[in-house]
């Protein structure tokens, strides 16, 4: 019995990735996530210029999950690549980039291409629900936009490309197909859902500094699972399932829907920084109990004809 996986030619001790934007501001903190059990890490998303991000509060807990509006605080692509360049660990490192349009994505891809030595893949995020100029707020995620952005990146960077789609935009299957057709190597299906809002009834004001934010955590899992299920039936490229993975059984479910890998974020809040190791252990135990020996038997299992 093994939960080993493979990530674009690289062995992974398990199929669990640290989701972008979680902890991963520095090489040290990405390394810490690896120490805590994940098989690979996705960096904080980098933009062309440094960004301060939204004014706080940047996160607020609700009765059902967490709302966040970070606003992509990051040191910019140059500084970010310098920070991540010295990656020496065996776990896969994915560099996440986010741009306002295809032109910006192309610029970012060019810069990553120059420093790709230790990088396993490039992830392009086109699905942030709460940052003006980016993601769903400017209509990224339509098949046309996905196709244009994917092409622009593939022309400028030879790394495997992961397109991170939103569960909040209808038509994720068409978007995934457009990404695949334009040359994407994988889909990361999932991001925070929304935007949503939490109002503090004592202060009569939205709590988040930006007013609105993306919902994450267990409550969004059914939507993420459905999205993964739908696109698995449509595309041939592998899928990262993202959204509400909190325990081993959540990862199993997401993989049965069609994910080859899962990415974990908000669960660090609910279960601690070592949540990756916990989920891995739980997956192993579950597989052993239920007679599975390899992850290949699980990915897409929900699609099998009986």
């Amino acid at each position, binding site marked *: 019995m093994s939960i080993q996986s493979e990530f674009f030619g690289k062995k992974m001790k398990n199929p669990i990735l640290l989701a972008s934007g979680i902890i991963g501001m520095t090489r*040290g903190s990405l390394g810490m996530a690896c120490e805590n059990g994940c098989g690979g890490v996705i960096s904080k998303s980098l933009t062309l210029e440094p960004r301060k991000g939204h004014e706080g509060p940047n996160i607020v807990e609700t*009765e059902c999950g967490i709302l*966040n509006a970070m606003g992509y605080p990051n040191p910019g692509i140059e500084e970010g690549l310098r920070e991540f360049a010295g990656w020496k660990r065996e776990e896969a490192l994915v560099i996440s980039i986010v741009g306002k349009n295809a032109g910006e994505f192309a610029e970012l891809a060019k810069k990553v291409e120059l420093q790709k030595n230790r990088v396993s893949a490039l992830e392009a995020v086109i699905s942030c629900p709460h940052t003006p100029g980016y993601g769903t707020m400017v209509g990224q995620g339509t098949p046309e936009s996905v196709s244009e952005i994917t092409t622009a990146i593939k022309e400028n960077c030879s790394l495997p490309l992961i397109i991170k789609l939103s569960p909040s935009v209808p038509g994720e299957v068409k978007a995934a197909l457009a990404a695949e057709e334009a040359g994407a190597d994988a889909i990361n299906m999932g991001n925070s859902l929304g935007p949503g809002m939490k109002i*503090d009834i004592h202060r009569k004001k939205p709590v988040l500094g930006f007013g609105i934010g993306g919902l994450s955590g267990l409550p969004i899992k059914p939507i993420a699972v459905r999205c993964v299920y739908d696109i698995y039936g449509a595309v041939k490229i592998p899928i990262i399932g993202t959204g509400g993975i909190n325990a081993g059984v959540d990862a199993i479910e997401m993989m049965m829907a069609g994910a080859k890998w899962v990415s974990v974020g908000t669960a*660090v*809040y609910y279960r601690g920084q070592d949540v990756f190791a916990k989920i891995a252990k739980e997956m192993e135990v579950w597989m052993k109990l239920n007679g599975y020996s390899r992850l290949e038997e699980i990915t897409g299992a929900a699609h099998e004809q009986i």
Partner: protein
Amino acid sequence: MNRYEILNQVYTNKVKTVIQENYRIKTIEIDHRMDCLPGQFLMVWIPGSGERPMSIGNADPLTISVANVGKVSGEIVNLVEGDRISYRGPFGNPFTIPKNAKKILCIGGGYGVVPMYFLARKAKEAGVNAIAVIGAKSENDIVWEKQLFVVCERVHITTDDGSKGKKGTVMIEVNELVEDVDAVYACGPEKMMAAVAKLCREKKKFCEVSIERIMKCGVGICGSCAINGKLCCMDGPVFTGEEALAMEEFGK
């Protein structure tokens, strides 16, 4: 009653007392007895303005001390008695007092004295004697001196300009005092804390310091406060002197 458990709710309570400490620092006592420990912090929210981490100076009443240094802190210091204040917390790991400790040294630089008061007070309650060292730029920058006198055996003061106490850094006093204590705590500028941690390494004394970084979420998600592979909000803000000295960034 919550229908579902929220781990970290936003509290809103009334400002009980506002004390003007000096030309830029105010102490705010909140009508709330919070279950919290010295070294922990709050994320204080001003609706429409922003949110900032604030060291806790006392649990009952919940107390913070705020320096007017920016947009959000500027609005916090403008609060008056009866106003409402909102916050999340307590967050972070507290200071720890070793079981066998009889006497501790609490070193506060600037408004780093705020958690040091809380620590000395808790120590006193537990039958542990505290000696305080306050370091400040000048006499006008010294805060919480009177409070420290109440909970400490002695309070030593150093100022950069010699306007009160001995002239120079806290190390003038700390070098003399360190031999007689079982544990040393410091909160303030990193250079000061690094000097304290190095001295404690040399003298083999238990040492904890409180490190400050920009914090956005406060709960270990965003990574804004990462310092050499540790998260200030979750792994800290209190670190042992050795942990701190192992961080490349510390004291720079």
